């Protein structure tokens, strides 16, 4: 959620969302899409009747099961006989229009795209998607709103400061259509965990349908082979921060390889694993008395910054990587120039495959944080959803049709519909290998870039065809990291000040922290930066969240994993 951190979509590019959120914002960490539900004033998800959770029955059995804690199911091969989720197309004619960001090159056009046409046939309606290059999406959204030419389904990415007003004026309140047992009419939407739906409210109403992700974005990636060469076989074995610093020094060979690389997208210093090692709270800490402390204000944060400054001073940061693009950072990681980077866990599969291609001996693995003084570190519940879609206001019958379409696009892994939406038409867009895994053809690679996956989506399964090792590694990492995951107590709350000033405040903090890490100012500068942060809006944000917490009843509704 860093300021302008347009991190990529899919394949683990999280949170292009949040062009500017709050407090939270931490350009330093470049973190993911935990979410702020955006209400008019103080409100929390607890005020809203959320869709009743109904697990899907009769789907394909996974090789590694999903857990109640939120670990996603994993499949070694695609189910041999995908089941049909629908016996007849859910719609009978008409058109569903939508607007989504595009994070790839453009797909083949509708008329030359058999996959697109087959999806329309299976849905029973035309699907007209306006796909906008991700970086331009918010501009296009504002002109579309101003021109009053909104389509049926609109992806809402960044939280604009006036989002509550926008939602109330242009978008449908979904509470009467999806709240409680009404959701059962849309079984695929009802199978999305409550923890994700909690992030979809505003002003006491349900306004969004989520594009769910798997709870935690993890704690970065490390090269197990490089750690092992320096005497540590598994990051879980590291005993404390001092040992870790020694290890990073051991790995670093100036000019050849370094302990850590950053990128401008993650704040320059790949800070997330360090914050996790030191147990820094996820944005805010809520004490028993209902008081909030920003993570900037905690001793843990200060200790993490101090440690990163030591790592920098020891020359373990890859020189210049602070200004790099994410691609440059990943290249450095994959080619063994850096042993630790921060990128979102969903992107690990690609990093793993590329590194193995460059050198089969490479052993990238997700970093699981140890505790800085022994014990365990933490991870954050910061990847609950990728984006949310809102539906244009319309009469209930029309909205019911659009919801049916959303339900269709949320067809789960192992169904014919999921296969079609993700891999296109058999024979043309993909062929099945001997393990009945779909393999995209050259045409399929272009045809399947249509952004159906952003019109609503099921929870994500782990599926790396033909790569059992990678699948097991991902499953184990999710298991370990979700076990350590802490929630942001403000995740479903709204603070108008955070909406307005959050980005600027976060940027000022990350600038100050960058100076400390690089040794241009001393650690004491952190105290004055925090003081400035508080007086410039931090305290105001705190009081707004606290007011919201007291106003909301029951739980703090912050991304608790559900069954």
């Amino acid at each position: 959620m860093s300021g302008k951190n347009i991190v990529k979509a899919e394949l683990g590019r999280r949170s292009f969302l949040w062009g500017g959120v709050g407090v939270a914002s931490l350009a330093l960490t470049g973190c993911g899409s935990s979410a702020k539900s955006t209400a008019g004033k103080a409100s929390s998800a607890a005020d809203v009747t959320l869709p009743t959770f109904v697990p899907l029955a009769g789907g394909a059995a996974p090789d590694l099961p999903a857990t109640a804690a939120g670990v996603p199911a994993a499949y070694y091969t695609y189910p041999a006989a995908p089941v049909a989720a629908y016996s007849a197309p859910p719609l009978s004619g008409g058109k569903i229009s939508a607007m989504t960001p595009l994070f790839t090159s453009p797909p083949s056009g509708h008329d030359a795209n058999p996959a697109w046409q087959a999806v329309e046939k299976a849905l029973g309606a035309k699907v007209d998607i306006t796909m906008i290059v991700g970086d331009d999406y918010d501009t296009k959204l504002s002109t579309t709103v101003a021109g009053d030419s909104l389509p049926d389904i609109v992806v809402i990415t960044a939280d604009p400061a006036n989002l509550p007003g926008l939602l109330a004026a242009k978008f449908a309140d979904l509470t009467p259509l999806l709240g409680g047992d009404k959701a059962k009419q849309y079984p695929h939407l009802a199978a999305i965990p409550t923890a994700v739906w909690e992030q979809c409210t505003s002003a006491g109403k349900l306004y969004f349908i989520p594009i769910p992700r798997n709870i935690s974005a993890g704690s970065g990636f490390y090269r197990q082979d490089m750690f092992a060469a320096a005497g540590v076989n598994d990051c879980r074995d590291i005993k404390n921060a001092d040992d870790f610093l020694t290890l990073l020094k051991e790995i670093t060979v100036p000019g050849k390889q370094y302990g850590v690389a950053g990128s401008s997208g993650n704040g320059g210093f790949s800070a997330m694993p360090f914050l996790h090692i030191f147990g820094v709270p996820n944005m805010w800490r809520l004490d028993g008395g209902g008081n909030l402390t920003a993570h900037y204000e905690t001793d843990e944060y200060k200790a993490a910054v101090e440690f990163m400054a030591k790592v920098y001073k020891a020359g373990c940061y890859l020189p210049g990587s602070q200004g790099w693009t994410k691609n440059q950072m990943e290249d450095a990681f994959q080619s063994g120039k850096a042993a630790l980077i921060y990128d979102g866990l969903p992107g690990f599969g690609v990093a793993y495959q590329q590194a193995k291609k460059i050198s089969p001996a490479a052993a990238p693995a997700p970093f699981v944080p140890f505790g800085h003084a022994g014990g365990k570190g933490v991870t954050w519940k910061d990847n609950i959803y990728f984006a949310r879609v809102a539906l244009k206001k319309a009469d209930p019958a029309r909205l019911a049709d659009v919801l049916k379409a959303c339900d269709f696009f949320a067809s789960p892994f192992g169904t014919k519909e999921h296969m079609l939406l993700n891999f296109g038409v058999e024979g043309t867009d993909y062929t099945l290998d001997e393990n009945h895994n779909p393999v995209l053809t050259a045409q399929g690679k272009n045809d399947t870039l249509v952004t159906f996956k952003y019109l609503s989506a099921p929870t994500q399964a782990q599926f790396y065809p033909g790569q059992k090792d990678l699948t097991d590694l991902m499953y184990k990492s999710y298991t370990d990291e979700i076990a350590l995951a802490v929630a942001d107590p403000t995740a479903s709350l709204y603070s108008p000040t955070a909406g307005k000033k959050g980005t600027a405040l976060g940027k000022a903090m990350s600038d100050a922290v960058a100076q400390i890490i690089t040794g241009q100012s001393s650690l004491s500068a952190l105290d004055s930066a925090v003081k400035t942060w508080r007086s410039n809006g931090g305290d105001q944000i705190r009081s707004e969240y606290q007011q919201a917490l007291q106003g909301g009843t029951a739980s703090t509704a912050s991304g608790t994993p559900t069954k």
Partner: protein
Amino acid sequence: MERPSRLGTGAKALVIAAVFVVVVYPLYVVLATSFSSEADVAKAGGLVAWPAHPTLDAYRTVFNGGIVTRALLVSFGVTLVGTLLSVAATVGMAYGLSRRDLVGGRFILLIALFTMLFNPGIIPNFLTVKQLGLLGTYAALVLPSLVSAFNLVVLRSFFMALPGELYEAARLDGAGDFRILTRVVLPLSKGVIAVVSLFYAVGYWNAFFNAMLYLDDNTKWPLALVLRSFVTQGDAISNGEGIASTQAIQMAVVVVSVVPIVLVYPFLQRYFTKGVLSGAVKG
């Protein structure tokens, strides 16, 4: 004139060589990277100075599926038609405004200049285009920016600087304004028109923002916007299973977009240096 010293010549040569390297080296690296294999790119950590295993994979990826080819055609079309229309409109308007006897000419000129100072902003532009029914049409890429005030001023000043005797002579011979423009003014203005055409053409070739706002159908996208999606998005370009590395693809895309402009420049360059007016009066 004083003969330059040997030292001076040497220094100049050095400076020119340095400038040459500074200008050409980045272009060379772009080209080299676009031909590099994935392993080369990874080994070099991004940009490659010497592709050890040259390959055309990046270009294959870029041209796979015909999207870039189609966008190239769109861009050629928009650039060609747009430049012709823009130059025609600008020449006509500049000629009219260059005549001192035009009633209200000053007012019209001020209105045109006003647009150089105050930009109406994205949303009013969008609403105008929408109201005119141009959304989703190629006309939306050309008409809103048909006349650039800057180019208008350049042409008008040039026309005003032509000797008044030329106009008088033509009038005495019975020529009307249209004939004066086409037979007298334009033949003398080839250089400046070439320059203005180039400004327009480069503008149309590079424009992506209008297309992003006004064209919802991405099969209508011009090259600049398609390339933007390749360059800014950085990954997932071939939907996983990268055959070519992302950097190589991005650089291939840069090459594809730059080549046409590079090809056109040498032909127009002489107009930049040529003394356009020499001998016009003496005839």
